[in-house]
């Protein structure tokens, strides 16, 4: 370990310069997003307004969570092809547990002709909070199962999660053969609007009318949730021993093992955290759409977009470098690009083509560095 020099004058600038160089992918993603988003708001007739922000926040949240979910296994040089499936499954559970029906929701289980009554799930505020916890726990459990299959089954992550993803989609289809269910209206309203609406719905801060609260009342709740999850879950994890072990496993698993790092636990933790993040995304999607839908193409699209977000956000698919924060920006860049289609009135039929071309262009420009490589051997990492 290098001793850190005292942060004074030029040495501090050096420190910043080194950090920027180490995180050039993330910095590029953040700058690109800022430029795109300002342009978008300038071009939008109602740009820079709370309404636009709220709408964008709702559209971004689920993909941003899935991008975070995908990042953690990728950092450990695994890939999780089940994030979309976990999202879908958790959404289907949420459509049963978060109905908010007065008197509670009776839960039945029909399996192989058996009809079981599981009990009544409370419908008041405690029931909703409990439902949220249960949904997130289901997501984390699915991720934990992935981790165990990868670590103890010693099956390659990409193929293991392909298989478990099929199982999770099966469970989602079992729960919701057709789209349906319902989500408490207040919950939907509180989480998919601005902080002011949230305060008014849950009756805090004088229903959101308190004077000191006004300057922040315009902020969309999804953004707040995103920042909270990043600060309260991702940052502590990254700084923990397990988080560092995830990075170490991704850059050199053998070296990590020889150094005595908890390799197995790091991998399981990475997949569990991925399941948790994917669960957050699924929960929000269900709340936002007020229903559960076992939509297989949608699950696939979210999984693939999460991989794209991770790459655009500056995380190497080889593992070991990058950050979930970068992936959030990667996801936001992907989404903002589709916002532009609405503004500039691009024919809907041409939109998939542009999305594909932009993705290809982004990764190809990022790869142009290989043309400067002098020693061909360096290419074969």
């Amino acid at each position, binding site marked *: 370990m290098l001793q850190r020099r005292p942060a004074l004058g030029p040495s501090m600038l050096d420190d910043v310069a080194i950090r920027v160089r180490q995180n050039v992918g993330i910095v590029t993603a953040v700058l690109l997003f800022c430029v795109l988003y300002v342009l978008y708001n300038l071009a939008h007739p109602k740009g820079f307004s709370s309404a636009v922000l709220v709408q964008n926040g709702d559209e971004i949240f689920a993909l941003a969570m899935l991008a975070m979910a995908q990042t953690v296994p990728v950092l450990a040089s695994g890939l999780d092809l089940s994030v979309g499936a976990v999202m879908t499954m958790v959404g289907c559970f949420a459509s049963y547990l978060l109905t908010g029906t007065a008197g509670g929701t009776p839960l039945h289980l029909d399996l192989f002709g058996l009809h079981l009554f599981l009990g009544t799930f409370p419908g008041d505020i405690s029931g909703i909070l409990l439902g949220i916890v249960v949904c997130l726990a289901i997501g984390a459990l699915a991720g934990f199962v992935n981790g165990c299959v990868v670590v103890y089954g010693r099956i390659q992550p990409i*193929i293991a999660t392909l*298989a478990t993803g099929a199982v999770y989609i*099966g469970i989602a289809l079992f729960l919701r053969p057709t789209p349906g269910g319902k989500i408490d209206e207040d919950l939907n309203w509180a989480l998919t609007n601005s902080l002011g609406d949230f305060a008014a719905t849950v009756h805090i801060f004088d229903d959101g009318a308190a004077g000191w609260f006004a300057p922040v009342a315009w902020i969309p709740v999804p953004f707040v949730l995103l920042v909270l999850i990043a600060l309260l879950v991702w940052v502590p994890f990254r700084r923990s021993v397990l988080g560092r072990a995830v990075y170490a496993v991704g850059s050199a698993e053998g070296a990590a093992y020889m150094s005595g790092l908890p390799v197995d636990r790091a991998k399981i933790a990475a997949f569990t955290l991925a399941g948790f993040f994917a669960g957050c995304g699924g929960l929000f999607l269900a709340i936002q759409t007020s229903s559960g839908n076992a939509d297989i193409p949608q699950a696939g699209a979210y999984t693939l977009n999460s991989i794209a977000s991770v790459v655009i956000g500056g995380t190497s698919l080889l593992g070991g470098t990058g950050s979930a924060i970068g992936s959030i920006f990667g996801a936001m860049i992907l989404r903002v690009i589709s916002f532009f289609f609405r503004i500039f009135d691009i024919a809907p039929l041409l939109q998939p083509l542009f999305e594909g071309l932009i993705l290809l262009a982004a990764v*190809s420009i990022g790869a142009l560095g*290989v043309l400067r490589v002098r020693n061909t051997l360096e290419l074969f990492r």
Partner: protein
Amino acid sequence: MTSASLSLSRDDRPILIAALFILVILVAGTVYTFARFGSAPLLSPTYLLQQLQIGAFLGIVAAGMMVVILIAQIDLSVPWTLAAAAMMATSIGGPLAIPVGLGIGLLVGLVNGIGVAYLRVPSMIFTLGVNAVMRGLMVAHTGGYAPQTAATDLMRTLAADRTLGIPNALFVWAAVSVLVAVMLQRTALGRYIYAIGNKEAAAYLAGVDTRRVTVICFVICGVAAALAGVLLAGYSTKAYQGMGDAYLLPSIAAVVIGGTNILGGRGRYLGTLIGVVLIVLLNSVLSIMDMPEAGRQVIYGLVIIFMLLVYGRGERVTS
């Protein structure tokens, strides 16, 4: 481990176990149909041939996918390469239909190969982008609807007709299989492919133009997907949106169940063949059982995990 399995080579064990599992599926399915309907359709050659005819499309896609997986890459552009080849072949029509369809596959494979081999973009993301572009092109071309154009007579003959009671699609699959198997086992290119999958830097130092071989592998995969698309369009008399979506994950699963290492460098073509048959039979038994989609997905996932737990386990990285 018993002495019988010790005498088998590392690459043969998965093939044998997968073949045994096929027998288990056949027996279990037959017991079920006999108990429920008093008949045994799974043992009738007509039914099996019909199932294999449907399996031929998956088999051809899997053959191409295997070549790419052997060099430790993956091709996610298969779904829309397949659909694009089918759509262009039907819209061109006439004697040029099949060459144009295969040409689409060749072109896509070339782009994939250049991106992966020369730009060094991870294949996972590059082929994903190419898939999106192909989808975009086809949506713009067809307007998002199923194209009205029909498959040519030759396409229908190749995919849907029979010769001497055997579906022609099986002959095409057999021809592709022979080509790929011979290429992998008897040619220098095949040796290069396994070498690159094991260690690209070593293959390069040994004098292999690894980047050109990578491009060739992606071209093979693209053309195989295009051929499957052309045949599928002939089988269903026309092309339709999303016709390739059902082929991506099953083809990867078939290759892996057949004992090919997803990290490249190891695996035999016979295994892929067995893997395809296993997946096709599993699907047909589940549909005979009237299994709802939910149960199918769960069983499908569990079978993949089970097979890999039996013989696909990796080794611990300890140094």
